[in-house]
């Protein structure tokens, strides 16, 4: 497969995980502009595990996801009671705090005669586990696709379960959900934890894909895009955010039809979709209609 195509598909898979993490929070009515914080935390944690502690890839990714989940839970516990824009601002503030903390973070130790590890604003290079094990970009793409597929299957299962119904109830009307006996706070914190884990997993995979992660990766742009993917693709199904990523990275970026104007086109598209379809292309109604067609009840 063409090297560029492999790169584009790999990016779609990584950003798909971050988009799913923002989508999970949108389901419970929380708008987060801070998913990049967990992406960065996951990237650094998994990178430290393989590059400095010589862990193998899978335990390192699990470790990164766990640290991301822990950080998300720590943020969610005091802030998820905030509504709408207040939670969005809190999540953004947390992400900026994380970015600045990573700019100050230095943890360098000697590995094989070289000094390695996070070096403040210079970032964290030499995350070479994938490269040194001879895993080709094509094979790494397979791993990324497998992780994304597992995440999508888990979402599909969750959305058809009572948990999924409860999460959507919380997102629609938390007071009504509480009256119905849904433990609103507990489920919100659970969703935040899972969302942090997903974003951190994306960060860990990205760090090993590029061999490099740095504080600038924890930029607000990533958080805004993560939310925008869900809003464009639709909030009716977990395939919605993925559709948003495919549209942006696959079509706008991959084809380079719009070259330097891509971000303007993307911004305009978000505004247009929000005006015409406030819950995205694959919103609940569209998903319901598609499901009926597949069941032969159209």
């Amino acid at each position: 497969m063409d090297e560029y195509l492999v790169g584009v598909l790999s990016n779609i898979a990584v950003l798909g995980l971050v988009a799913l993490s923002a989508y999970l929070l949108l389901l419970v009515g929380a708008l987060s502009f801070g998913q990049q914080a967990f992406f960065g935390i996951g990237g650094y944690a998994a990178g430290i595990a393989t590059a400095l502690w010589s862990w193998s890839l899978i335990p390192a990714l699990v470790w990164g996801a766990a640290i991301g989940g822990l950080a998300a839970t720590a943020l969610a516990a005091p802030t998820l009671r905030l509504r709408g824009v207040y939670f969005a601002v809190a999540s953004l503030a947390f992400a900026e705090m994380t970015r600045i903390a990573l700019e100050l973070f230095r943890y360098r130790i000697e590995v094989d005669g070289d000094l390695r590890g996070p070096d403040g604003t210079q970032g964290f290079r030499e995350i070479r586990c994938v490269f040194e094990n001879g895993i080709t970009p094509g094979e790494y793409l397979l791993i990324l696709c497998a992780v994304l597929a597992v995440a999508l299957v888990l979402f599909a299962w969750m959305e058809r379960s009572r948990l999924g119904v409860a999460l959507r109830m919380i997102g629609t009307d938390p007071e009504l959900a509480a009256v119905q006996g849904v433990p609103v706070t507990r489920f919100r914190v659970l969703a935040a934890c899972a969302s942090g884990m997903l974003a951190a997993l994306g960060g860990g995979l990205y760090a090993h894909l590029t061999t490099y992660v740095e504080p600038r990766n924890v930029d607000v742009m990533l958080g805004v895009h993560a939310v925008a993917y869900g809003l464009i693709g639709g909030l009716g199904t977990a395939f919605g955010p993925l559709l948003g990523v495919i549209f942006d990275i696959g079509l706008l970026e991959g084809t380079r039809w719009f070259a330097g104007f891509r971000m303007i086109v993307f911004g305009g598209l978000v505004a247009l979709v929000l005006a015409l379809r406030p819950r995205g292309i694959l919103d609940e109604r569209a998903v319901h209609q598609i499901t009926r067609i597949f069941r032969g009840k159209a």
Partner: protein
Amino acid sequence: MKREWNEALVTAIALVMTSSPVLAQERARAENSPTPAKEKARATVSCSAGAEKLTYECRIELLGAKSGTPVTGADVTVGADMPSMPGAHNVKPVKATPTGEPGAYKAKLALEMHGEWALKITVTGRVRDVVIHRMRFD
């Protein structure tokens, strides 16, 4: 409907399982291949604006990180990613060609926008390495 979800689950598990043998095969291939040189590369990069908008002519000097000797006869590929939006602005990797001077290579990059980029220089041959070089393009 339940059967469809089961099929989706089986497909996902199959994907995970198929990726494992591929990795094992690759590892075995790497073990049987001649030991790659352990030395890493150090890169010095300078770029100047090209004739077309957002194109840059880059000169890459590769030296052995420890020996300091020029890395000659290597296959060098240059890609770029924008750190502020990881994975979203991907530059099509281009092959760098030797300039004739020892350890010096040149490549023409076509970026999507101005700003800070992380160049990913992949070196294969006598030295096998990935070097990240961050620089600003205005």
